[in-house]
């Protein structure tokens, strides 16, 4: 009896320590998750992507900055079927058919030598314009649903989220990145020499923004294009964009099949 009476307070203190410790740990883990969901994608943005950006063509220069020769497939995991189609590419036919914009579809667009102008069209739609080929991509957040009937286009329909690197919704909100899934594409080219992707290609994109010394910033835009018909393996490619102080370099040019 005495033994039990002596131990009771000790056990009680021990239990309290464990409970308090668990509570503290739970609070640390839950930081940033217990708040109400933000009202809009713009309000929840972990970084500010808006403004003017310039691509930095420091890699694959002769394949991107100038249109390469027919049959130059280095850097693309082209399949036999894709090669057959690309070998039959005819620039004049594209021009005659009004298909000059085929190399400017979403799967290849961000890897081209372009400036970007990024702005919020509304609280849940991020608009990305390119001056090269004067294309517009609309990145829809929230509960947006694609219009019916389904309509294909060069830029398709894009759904965007601020995604966690930890899977699910874990991690601090500041650590999120932009994840874009695009469907409803018209078939187009991954390169300006006719390397094709089909209508059923899938496009998944990851966008990071890195702050640099002196107020500079860099966007790194990684795309994963999967097209089992025209590609042997997913085509993973990243493009870099440097923040510009203003739009003075913005220079809209129309789509061109040959330049």
């Amino acid at each position, binding site marked *: 009896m005495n*033994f039990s009476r002596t*131990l009771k307070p000790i056990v009680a203190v021990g239990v309290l320590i464990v409970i308090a410790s668990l509570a503290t740990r739970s609070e640390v883990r839950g930081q940033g998750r217990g708040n109400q969901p933000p009202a809009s994608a713009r309000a929840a943005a972990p970084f500010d992507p808006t403004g003017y950006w*310039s691509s930095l063509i420091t*890699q694959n220069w*002769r394949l991107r900055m100038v249109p390469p*020769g027919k049959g130059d497939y280095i850097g*693309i995991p082209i399949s036999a079927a894709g090669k057959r189609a690309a070998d039959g590419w005819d620039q004049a036919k594209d021009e005659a058919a009004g298909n000059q914009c085929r190399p400017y579809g979403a799967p290849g667009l961000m890897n081209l030598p372009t400036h970007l102008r990024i702005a919020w069209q509304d609280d849940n739609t991020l608009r990305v314009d390119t001056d090269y080929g004067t294309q517009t991509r609309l990145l829809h957040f929230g509960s947006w649903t694609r219009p019916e009937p389904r309509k294909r286009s060069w830029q398709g329909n894009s759904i965007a989220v601020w995604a966690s690197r930890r899977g699910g919704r874990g991690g601090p909100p500041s650590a999120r990145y932009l994840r874009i899934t695009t469907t409803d594409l018209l078939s187009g080219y991954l390169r300006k020499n006719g390397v094709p992707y089909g209508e059923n290609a899938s496009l998944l994109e990851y966008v990071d923004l*890195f702050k640099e010394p002196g107020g500079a910033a860099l966007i790194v835009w990684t795309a994963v294009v999967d097209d089992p018909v025209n590609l042997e*393996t997913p085509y993973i490619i990243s493009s870099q964009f440097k923040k510009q102080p203003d739009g003075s370099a913005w220079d809209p040019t129309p789509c061109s099949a040959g330049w």
Partner: protein
Amino acid sequence: MWPRLSAAIVVVAATSALVLAQALPNPDGIDLSGSWAARNFTDAIGNMPGGGPRPVDYMGIPLNDIGRAWSLVYSQSQMSEPGRICDYYAPSYIAIGPMGLRIWPESELVTGYTTAWMIGGWADFVPITMWMDRRPHPSQYAAHDKSGFTTGVWEDDVLVTYTTHMEASMIRRNGVPSSDRATMTARFSRHDDVLTITARIDDPIYLTEPYYLTRSFALSRTPLNPATHPCTVTNEGVDAERVPHYKPGQNPFVGELTELYGIPQDAVLGGAETALPEFRKRIKDKYVRPSKCVSVPVSTCGGPGTYPPID
């Protein structure tokens, strides 16, 4: 008395053990460990296995006049010299080489704290140690070597590393130099099972501004061996007393890209402006598009089988 005291000690010890066990925090950041297969599409020319890019292809590199002059002196035959055969292999090889990566943490076993992230799995280079324990970089006068000295921090779940103390090396595998004052900031950004590394190379000797490069990798179930051997100096029978080089104005490859690919000279020789979209205006009327792929050997035109799927 003793039984009571013993019982009390047991309860307190068990309680403390419980508290300690559940209170240990997870290591910082996210898990980067695994074997990452190189997907060399972003820089198919620069990361090309074998010899790498063609001579005198400096397009997109922010070279200054000294960097350009030093690049033009370079002869690929230098790689046969015992003293230069390992010149590629500074930590910047992570950005310019073709290899996949094996990444793993070195953990302190009692606390689980990540002391360093390691990168291995590539040929000719010992694993890189990226210290995470906030140790300072050595004095600027400390020895520079092939490994350099790298520290890392997590910034919003992106591993950001900073490398100093690299020996003079290259930033493109055709002789574009980096000095022993060059530094590299690398960002390891994981999304799902795709890893993108963004490298920024600063070099006050040879560059006018930072040089940015990216590479992408896909997580693979086929393990890369982390215990790769370092570059080994061998005798390829060249005269060790002579450094193969080209005298100023005499590099025979200066016109090669113009002849093969129709690319104007002012682009071939690089400079910061060549990386910008507006540079296209300067060369629009000079560029002559090849009618077909003219790369030599023809296998460097790519095609089916060039990039096998990964497991």
